């Protein structure tokens, strides 16, 4: 028979192990959780390449993120539906045509250098149909930047005075800017990080916390396959 002391010791040991296991499970789940990857769709034959359709919203809303409905976020369209994901699967060495519907307001760039379009085909983007090589840094709302590929695209925001501002995603029908650009994916397959460089996390110190520090909102990966 085990003495009372040994039984207590065993009990404490088992409890510590169980607690450690739970903490480990929580950390492992947190560290490995990621949004589902969404594949680019084949672009119309006339343009060649593949198509990626994105949306940025000031608040993702409870439908897409019950835990953080007020966080700013990107969304991607798949089969005609908006999906909350920031991991995009793209074919290697292919021209990707991006159409981005920008529903968020202006907040400005911390580094105005990012107001210039870089790394896109032609070094330009179109904003509401107009081709530009840079934007007013004060009008930036977000950026789509893939540092390893040298792709830097500033995204102007919806002016404050615009009517019909979007409250929650999906924002279709609300005031927005339409931005298009194209870039070529590299030959080298792999995972390339992209992110927004505008400190756009409302309610966090200098706008740098929350959705800026959590995979799936203002940053993600291009899985080049």
């Amino acid at each position, binding site marked *: 028979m085990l003495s009372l002391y040994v039984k207590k010791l065993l009990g404490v040991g088992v409890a510590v192990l169980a607690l450690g296991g739970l903490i480990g499970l929580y950390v492992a789940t947190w560290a490995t959780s990621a949004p589902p990857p969404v594949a680019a769709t084949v672009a119309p034959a006339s343009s060649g390449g593949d198509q990626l359709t994105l949306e940025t919203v000031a608040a993702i809303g409870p439908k897409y993120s019950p835990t953080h409905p007020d966080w700013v976020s990107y969304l991607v369209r798949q089969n005609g539906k908006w999906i909350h994901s920031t991991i995009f699967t793209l074919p290697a060495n292919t021209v990707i045509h991006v159409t981005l519907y920008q529903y968020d307001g202006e907040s*400005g760039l911390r*580094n105005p250098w990012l107001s210039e379009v870089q790394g896109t085909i032609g070094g330009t983007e179109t904003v509401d149909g107009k081709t530009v090589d840079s934007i007013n840094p004060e009008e930036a709302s977000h950026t789509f930047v893939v540092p390893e590929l040298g792709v830097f695209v500033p995204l102007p925001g919806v002016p404050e005075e615009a009517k019909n501002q979007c409250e929650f995603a999906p924002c279709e029908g609300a005031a927005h800017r339409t931005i298009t650009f194209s870039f070529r994916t590299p030959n080298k397959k792999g995972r390339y990080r992209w992110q927004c460089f505008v400190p756009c996390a*409302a*309610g966090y110190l200098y706008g*740098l916390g929350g959705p800026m520090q959590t*995979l799936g909102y203002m940053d993600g990966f291009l899985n080049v396959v």
Partner: protein
Amino acid sequence: MSSSPSIPSPAPGGEPNHALRFTVLWLTATVIAMPLVIIFIGPILAPGGTGSDAVSGYRSDMTVLAAIATPIILLVALYLLYAVAFFRQPQGGALEGPAVRGDARIQTTWIIVTSIIVLGIAVFGTVRLEEGSGAGSGSGPNPLTKPSGPKLPVQVIAQQWLFTYRYPTYGGVETTHLVLPENEQIEFHVTSIDVIHSFWAYQLGVKADANPGVDNIAFVKPTKVQAFNVRCAELCGIWHGYMRDTGHVVTQSAFNTWIHQQQTAFAPATKVLPKYSKTYLPEPTRRGE
């Protein structure tokens, strides 16, 4: 107790002269080990390469420190082994050694020798640091010493999660990548526009904290054409691990060509950049207020 023919014979009374024997052993080991450390170990203790004055300085300094450490490490390690071999407890016995108290000679020697070593290393380190104008490290906004002659200022701007580089003598153009001319004295001005980062150009031996509102100056003279790794060395958020780049040291003519290409390529951005300043601390944005 055994003794080898090369070791001094036992002192009168049967017990060998341990002090003399150990001293001979230690000095012999030091004479053998020190050149090996200087030749083989010292150079690999420093960060890679010999691509700048700073990293070459590290190499020689680390070699000197390793050479100083060698007899000390040998003293400790050999004495441990010697004690295990010769001062072993007799089998079956439980003898207590005689207490040694108040040996003024040992205490004085210990204090003097350790003081000389520690103070010597401190003086050596300080002299080398200032002799090398900070030896590639961030020396704050007012470095105590500066290298003489002309210097090319390059501003390193850190933000989550990207380094960009501004060349004030070339119209304040800001670039995505860091390119430096060979054999030219570089004056880095390292700052941040958000949180704390650290600029680390590994093969150049440059490491300087990037703090918002601080102009942290570091000097280096790249001495050969090469690529080098740029990394952030301060945990700065979720994508800290991706805050990296490859820089290049190129010939003066290649640098001139490159910088003029950058001035053309980044002309639209340069127009909207704020005037060159030692620090940039933008007001919090509307969202962050």
